């Protein structure tokens, strides 16, 4: 399609949206980075130093938090994908009842994260219905500790419950772009259901799979509120530790170091994604 060449006015028209984002996100990144090196300090004298970086990286507790958040991010994104992908495949072809099904599935998308956390907390608490049912069926003798558990399964479960619709929507979009001809051709050539899945659906939906996993990972990795209500007592998630370091202990410089760590990991993963996406779609230049 013919697109008009952009004029100077057009670049000006970009400003309201782009400028707004750049000013606010840019300034917050700038302050985070500057404070992590001891500049723009609000508590003491401003001076360029690596001291805070050394302190954070010699601190076992900080490292525990980083590892914990990485683990939660990875587990949540993989688990959500595993739940959502079969659903997306099933909903690819329309049929009776599927409209209702996809409406019910989408409900958690509209439930705010904190509410979702609370709803699941109710179920998995010590005398919650899940434990009661499992005990009534004599599968377990005494209630399982699923809430605030050491590993963080409770957090993962909440992330999965809340984010299945989000991932499903993205996957449905990329599955919809696969043409039926391709699938039919494979069937005619004798491909079974499994090889159609492995050689057609998964590879062709790969961009959608990657983007949904990345967005999921970023959400779960940088999460503050869900971990703070359903996560273990120790370690706190990295965002939770950062916020406590800043507002409870007033060590803004150390909090800034943690902030930079979160940003760098997030951007690194996003960059990795875009390389992977280029690779699978053959956009490699």
């Amino acid at each position, binding site marked *: 399609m013919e697109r008009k060449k952009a004029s100077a006015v057009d670049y000006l028209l970009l400003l309201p949206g782009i400028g707004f*984002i750049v000013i*606010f*996100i840019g300034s*917050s990144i700038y302050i985070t980075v500057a404070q992590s090196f001891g500049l723009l300090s609000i508590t003491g004298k401003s001076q360029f130093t690596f001291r805070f970086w050394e302190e954070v990286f010699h601190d076992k507790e900080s490292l525990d938090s980083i590892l914990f958040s990485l683990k939660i991010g990875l587990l949540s994104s993989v688990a959500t994908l595993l739940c959502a992908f079969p659903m997306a495949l099933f909903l690819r072809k329309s049929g009776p009842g599927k409209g209702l*099904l996809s409406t*019910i599935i989408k409900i958690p998308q*509209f439930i705010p994260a904190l509410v979702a956390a*609370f709803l699941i907390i*109710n179920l998995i608490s010590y005398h919650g219905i899940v434990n*009661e049912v499992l005990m009534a069926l004599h599968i377990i003798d005494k209630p399982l500790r699923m809430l605030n558990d050491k590993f963080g399964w409770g957090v993962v479960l909440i992330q999965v419950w809340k984010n299945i619709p989000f991932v499903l929507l993205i996957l449905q979009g990329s599955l919809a772009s696969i043409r039926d001809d391709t699938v039919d051709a494979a069937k005619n050539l004798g491909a079974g259901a499994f090889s159609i899945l492995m050689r057609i659906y998964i590879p062709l939906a790969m961009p959608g799979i990657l983007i949904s996993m990345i967005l999921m990972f970023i959400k779960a990795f940088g999460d503050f509120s869900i971990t703070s209500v359903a996560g273990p007592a120790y370690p706190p998630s990295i965002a939770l530790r950062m916020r406590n370091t800043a507002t409870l202990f007033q060590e803004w410089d150390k909090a800034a170091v943690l902030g930079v760590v979160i940003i760098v990991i997030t951007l690194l993963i996003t960059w990795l994604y875009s390389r992977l996406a280029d690779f699978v779609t053959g956009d490699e230049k």
Partner: protein
Amino acid sequence: MNKNRRVLNRILTIFFIVVQIVWVGLPILMAVLWSLVDPDHPWSFPNVFPEYLSWAQWKYVFNYTNILRALKTSYLLAPCAVLLSLLLSLPTAYVLGRKNVKGKKFFQTLVLLPIIMPGMVVALFLSRVFAAFHLTQSFFGLVLAHTLMGIPYMIRVLTASFEAIPQDIIDAAENLGANTWIKIKDILLPMVRPGLLSGIVFVFTASIEEFNLTFIIGTPTFETIPTILYSFLGYNFIRTNASVVALIMMIPNIIMLFVVERLLKSDYLSASLGKL
């Protein structure tokens, strides 16, 4: 063979619907029950259902907590954020969708920064910027913050909608002598309306849910529904109060889900977020 497949498909559909009703419905049902527990007859082990139901918890929450004020703040903030993000997004999305801008891909990625950037980091250090301009603890500051979190969806969805308008239609209108105003009013805006509406829904729900920035920038002067729920889930965990607040926070969203179901086609979300 074909008939068997259809039957299998039916059975699978029913099976998935049942699974989903339990998976989504049970947590909601439990919250409803908890919110209706009578304070004089506590619901405890081993009762599967509460013995007495009453509205007492609802009355308590409305009479003795800040919920009404939080509701007002939340539902005042969201339309403001929608309006501001709409005004800021329209020109930007128009250019991104219809013109050959240099570095278009770069701008498209840049737009997603507010949702890619970890919320708590942005909240914490943006609050330093806001403090410098006396925007913390102010309503206008919260509007700016909520706009920031919603604007990526708006720009992305609108860009995709502008892109989808066939150039022929615009050319035809130009040939027939349409001026810029007519083109905007009679062609561009009507054709992007579905995208516009789903953008509005996204920004509205994003604003109602926004927690990190509101928590850091707005509390204690301004409480929204999420921050009030957080306070009930925190150190003094009061399940019954939290149930009421959780339900209040959910009801409008679920109504909206059914109203906009038509609009929330998967292609909008994947068009807006499908590629970085």
